């Protein structure tokens, strides 16, 4: 989130069309932050009047869509699959709609839906985890037991098993469906990871938003001379955001380029090339991927590249939970 | 009055207002060292308020306090304690979950700073109790104690702080005669050592035999002073409330033969092997008052609870020949049982509610107040107005909150509520506890006239005089058993007292 001290004036700051970002609240260390980042970056690169319609409430999606229309937004970008219903039910003759993070195969009239193949990037980090693991035992910490997070697991497990079918994959969700504290409870994340590392796992993939912080801390804290433990981040390149003492334990991150999706949609809209219909962000168009910061994957770079190519070419079909 | 002995306390021109109400209106009071000074007056006269001012709990709006001839200002009870004043409140101020010794030493704990030397505190309290003749179980939790013991704890709190001026606000209202005697004896020891005792009571014979000086207060003002030797109870009573001493009109009709209440083998199990009430059998006839005497905690409470249907009791209860042993409280009340509870503030009346709402308490399931599912507020208000008029309840109308009534008027209201329904059987516990002479006279006359109309009454009271005055027959309860059944006309307080303490009776009666 950004502090914007220039207040008082409504969105007349810059010329150009009004573009609205409809989102929840930032600070989820996940795609809301990433989307917001894309939106702010776009503001620097393009000329438009930004309109941020954020709300922590889950029951006012329709209100925000209406608000965007009432503010004459030329483009409204909704972050999250919940925008599907209001966007499909609202007449918007003068406004373009983009729905980010839709389910694969979602087609809405006059709406651009963007979906991510998160299972593909998870598959690749699963491969990386299996390659890096010396104990042939890896783990997965999910924030909330919901389909989007299960999808990470499905890809991760398939990737790990593709390297070693007998590999052990632990799995823990920090909170049940509907309880979003699982995304913001690093204490639990840390203890879940601690249990896995102590049980023999040496790579743990954290798809747990803010709780992931606990997993990263635990990877560093539980590593000994005898056993090096790794953590794998999610959504953004975690290596860039954690402190220097933890960097050496971040094997890689599965990346979901929500910011790119937002930025690209805005750019396409401004140059008139944004089309309604489904856009899929996957490995083939760098919509998802994995990070190599720290160089810990250098040894497996060729293997990973080959597998990535197989996925893009369709030789490997990654299972999905969605 | 201040003949030679030095004056220990002098209050002059004390005024205290509560909002629009003036509770103390220019009161003067002089207490000599080595004397017992009684303050009497009707309910709500302002006695407790005056004592709270002297003990530093309230500050006067006007007037001065002198101790030992020096003017003092009390900002808090601590100041008053430093000046040697201790008070035993009318309503006990004990923390129920705290142990006895903790209640005693509270805010004045022995030991190094910050800490409490628990062993020393317990020892000191134990020794103090022994020395002064107020035995208490030092380690017991206060809520497990009976009233008599709680009273002793309150007194120990005062003595522990080395008070020279001891205020007792209605100390004997809840004590049986033997306990009261012990209290007076102990107080005499203090006064002979130079301390002063200020003492409030509605029992005028007690005042006359125990006090050295008497001050009478009415409506917040001093209306007279007296010395016991030169005055009589009825003079005092006239001074207080402009009414005569309560007298019992002799019964006009003989007791009827009709049995209204009969119990057989009534037993209430206790926590231990000893039952709280054991195999109690008796009868009450129409037009008869049967008194139940006993030292507090010998089964009176359980007996009433069992009869009204609040206790898990075994045995048979017959009301007018019908077995009501399995009936609920509501059913029993519907069949004509009235109940004046032991502790009006606990279960007799709901203080925050209006008199209107209190007027139907216990009768809420019956017509006229119950109309289908609806609560008839008009009927309730009518009942309240009737009670207020018929029983001379002063201090408000149906809309008044019960809490703002004085204790005596609350009591009259309860008696009125129970009698208004013309019950067949009245279970009356301590019907005049803590009420002034005027109210006592009123309540007694209501009870006797109801008796003459044929009401059967079971009267439990800690006040033996009351039992002797009102009852036709007396049952004595000791350790949950009836140890004696006496004809009230031929018996004196001493004999009853012996049965009560177990000195007489025992096997042959059981």
């Amino acid at each position: 989130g950004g502090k914007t001290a220039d207040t008082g004036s409504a969105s007349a700051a810059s010329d150009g069309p009004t573009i609205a970002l409809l989102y929840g609240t930032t600070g989820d260390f996940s795609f809301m932050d990433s989307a917001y980042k894309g939106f702010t970056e776009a503001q620097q690169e393009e000329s438009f009047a930004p309109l941020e319609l954020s709300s922590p409430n889950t029951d006012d999606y329709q209100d925000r869509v209406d608000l965007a229309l009432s503010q004459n937004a030329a483009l409204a970008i909704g972050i999250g699959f919940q925008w599907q219903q209001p966007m499909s039910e609202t007449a918007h003759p003068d406004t373009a709609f983009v729905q980010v993070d839709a389910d694969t195969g979602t087609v809405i009239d006059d709406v651009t839906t963007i979906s991510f193949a998160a299972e593909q990037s998870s598959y690749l980090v699963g491969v990386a985890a299996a390659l890096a693991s010396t104990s042939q035992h890896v783990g997965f910490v999910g924030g909330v037991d919901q389909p989007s997070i299960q999808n990470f697991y499905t890809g991760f497990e398939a990737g790990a098993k593709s390297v070693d079918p007998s590999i052990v994959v632990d799995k823990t969700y920090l909170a049940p469906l509907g309880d979003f504290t699982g995304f913001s409870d690093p204490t639990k994340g840390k203890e879940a990871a601690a249990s896995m590392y102590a049980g023999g796992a040496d790579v743990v993939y954290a798809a747990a938003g803010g709780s992931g912080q606990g997993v990263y801390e635990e990877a560093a804290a539980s590593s000994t001379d005898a056993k090096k433990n790794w953590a794998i981040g999610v959504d953004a390149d975690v290596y860039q955001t954690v402190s220097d003492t933890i960097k050496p334990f971040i094997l890689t991150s599965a990346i979901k380029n929500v910011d790119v999706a937002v930025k690209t949609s805005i750019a396409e809209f401004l140059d008139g090339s944004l089309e309604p219909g489904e856009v899929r962000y996957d490995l083939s168009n760098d919509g998802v991927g994995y990070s190599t910061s720290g160089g810990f994957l250098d040894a497996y770079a060729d293997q990973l590249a080959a597998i990535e190519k197989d996925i893009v070419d369709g030789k490997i079909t990654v299972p999905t939970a969605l | 009055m201040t003949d030679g002995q030095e004056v220990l306390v002098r209050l002059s021109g004390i005024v205290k207002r509560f909002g629009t109400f003036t509770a103390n209106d220019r009161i003067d009071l002089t207490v000599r060292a080595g004397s017992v000074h009684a303050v009497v007056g009707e309910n709500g006269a302002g006695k407790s308020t005056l004592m709270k001012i002297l003990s530093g709990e309230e500050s006067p709006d006007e007037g001065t306090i002198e101790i030992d001839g020096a003017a003092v200002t009390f900002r808090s009870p601590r100041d008053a304690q430093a000046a040697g004043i201790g008070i035993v409140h009318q309503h006990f101020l004990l923390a129920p979950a705290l142990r006895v010794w903790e209640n005693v030493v509270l805010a004045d704990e022995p030991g190094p700073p910050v800490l409490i030397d628990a062993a020393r505190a317990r020892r000191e309290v134990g020794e103090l109790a022994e020395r002064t003749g107020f035995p208490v179980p030092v380690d017991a939790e206060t809520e497990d104690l009976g009233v008599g013991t709680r009273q002793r704890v309150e007194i120990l709190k005062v003595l522990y702080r080395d008070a020279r001026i001891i205020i007792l606000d209605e100390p004997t209202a809840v004590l049986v005669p033997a306990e009261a005697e012990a209290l007076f004896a102990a107080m005499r020891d203090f006064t002979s050592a130079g301390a002063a005792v200020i003492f409030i009571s509605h029992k005028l014979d007690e005042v006359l035999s125990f006090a050295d000086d008497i001050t009478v207060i009415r409506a917040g003002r001093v209306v007279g002073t007296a010395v016991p030797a030169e005055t009589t109870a009825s003079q005092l009573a006239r001074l207080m409330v402009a009414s005569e001493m309560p007298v019992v009109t002799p019964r006009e009709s003989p007791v009827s033969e009709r049995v209204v209440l009969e119990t057989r083998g009534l037993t209430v199990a206790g926590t231990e092997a000893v039952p709280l009430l054991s195999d109690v059998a008796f009868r009450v006839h129409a037009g008869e008052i049967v008194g139940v005497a006993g030292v507090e905690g010998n089964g009176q409470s359980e007996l009433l609870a069992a009869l009204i249907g609040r206790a898990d009791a075994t045995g048979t209860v017959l009301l007018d020949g019908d077995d009501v042993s399995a009936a609920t409280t509501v059913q029993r009340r519907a069949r004509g049982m009235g109940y004046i509870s032991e502790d009006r503030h606990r279960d007799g009346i709901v203080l925050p509610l209006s008199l209107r709402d209190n007027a139907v308490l216990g009768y809420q399931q019956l017509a006229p107040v119950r109309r289908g599912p609806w609560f008839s507020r008009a009927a309730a208000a009518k009942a309240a107005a009737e009670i207020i008029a018929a029983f001379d309840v002063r201090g408000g109308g149906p809309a008044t909150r019960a809490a703002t009534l004085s204790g005596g008027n609350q009591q009259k209201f309860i008696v009125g509520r129970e009698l208004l329904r013309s019950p067949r059987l009245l279970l009356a516990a301590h019907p005049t506890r803590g009420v002034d002479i005027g109210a006592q006279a009123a309540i007694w006359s209501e009870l006797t006239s109801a008796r003459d109309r044929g009401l059967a009454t079971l009267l439990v009271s800690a006040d033996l005089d009351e039992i002797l005055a009102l009852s036709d027959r007396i049952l004595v309860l000791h350790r949950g058993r009836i140890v004696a059944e006496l004809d009230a006309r031929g018996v004196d307080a001493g004999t009853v007292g012996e049965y009560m303490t177990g000195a007489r009776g025992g096997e042959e009666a059981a």
Partner: protein
Amino acid sequence: MTAATTAPAASAAPSSERRRARSILSSVLLGFGLLLIAQWVCDAPGLSSSSTWGSALRLTVPIAVVAVGALYSERAGVINVGLEGMMIGGTWGAGLFGWFGGPWVALIGGVVGGLVFGLLMAVLCLELGLNQLVVGVAINVLAAALARFLSDIVFSGLDGGSVARSPRIEGNVPRVSLPFLSGGFGTPDPLRDLEATGIPVLSPLAGIVGGLTRDVSLAAIIGLALIPLTAFVLWRTRFGLRMRASGEEPAALQALGGHVHRTRYSAVLVGSGMAGFAGGYLVLISQGYVENQVAGRGFIGLATLIFGNWMPGGVFAGSALFGFSDAVGLGRPETFRGMLFVLGAVFVVLGGVRLRRRLGARAAVPSLILGAVLLVAALVLPLPSALATAAPYLVTLAVLVVAGTRMRPPRALGRFFPRQNSSR
């Protein structure tokens, strides 16, 4: 009832203490035995592994601290529904202080953050006599809103900070282990080796002891030390006695010259400071403030306080139960089964004992039924994995169903006591 019983009580004390010690010892042994059986039956080595017990310890601390803090306030007569908010204040304060002062200063910041809301609660409840539930609820809402609002102003611009996160706190408070047992101060770690051997009985014991004594953060030790300290304060100090009195019958305290308001203020503030400390402890784990990281622990603390019947020992038992089941729920599924097995067995044993002692069917039957259900669940039923996340709540509820005794809240809890002579 009337005789002074000073002497017998004094002589009875040691023997009753010994009896209590013996019964505690025997239940610990029974529990350990059941644990071993469960471990074998459910094939759940996690039940006695040092990692589970270490986790349990770390998860217990914040709940124990916040609950024991609430104990102060409630013992003094002030209902504390605002614990969650005070903890949130603690996390934010810890994030702020820790950012420029390191971990120890973070803990202080946590205390300060809690105190701010404690002061608010004290003033509103004690001076103005506002409804204590309202104030508590309002503090929870206010703290969450303020934390985000202020983060936006303070943390957003900082390196590594955002609207939902403070910059990272570098370093951590030292961790200690027992020397010569769990490898403290550079000594060898025989317990770890023993745990690894897999010797029956000894190896699980080594796991448990090792888990509880290895690499324990000083912050956790301080937090846990607050429990015996509180017991001491409550029963052995003047402040403790006055606090209990002002929660039971403030008028009695005042009539004896005590200061009800002073006592209640101190209690509310001490309690809020502890709640803030608990927040700071969470921040140390995540090495920084993370929005919403309190995650309902304030409410759990309140529940634990009631579970513990407003007693320090009970609070510890409640939070340990909660922390242990939380740790187990975060671990492997078979460990969860094992725990259910232990619990079920305990209930069945308890029900049997109650039946034998003829305490009546009402006491015995619920524990027997619940015990049987848990045993069946542990051994046969397929358990949805989501159930593990509810483990601490289910376990606590089950224990309440079986154990539930008359709770004894402070009698003046929630009752406003106006300042003396307010009529003037």
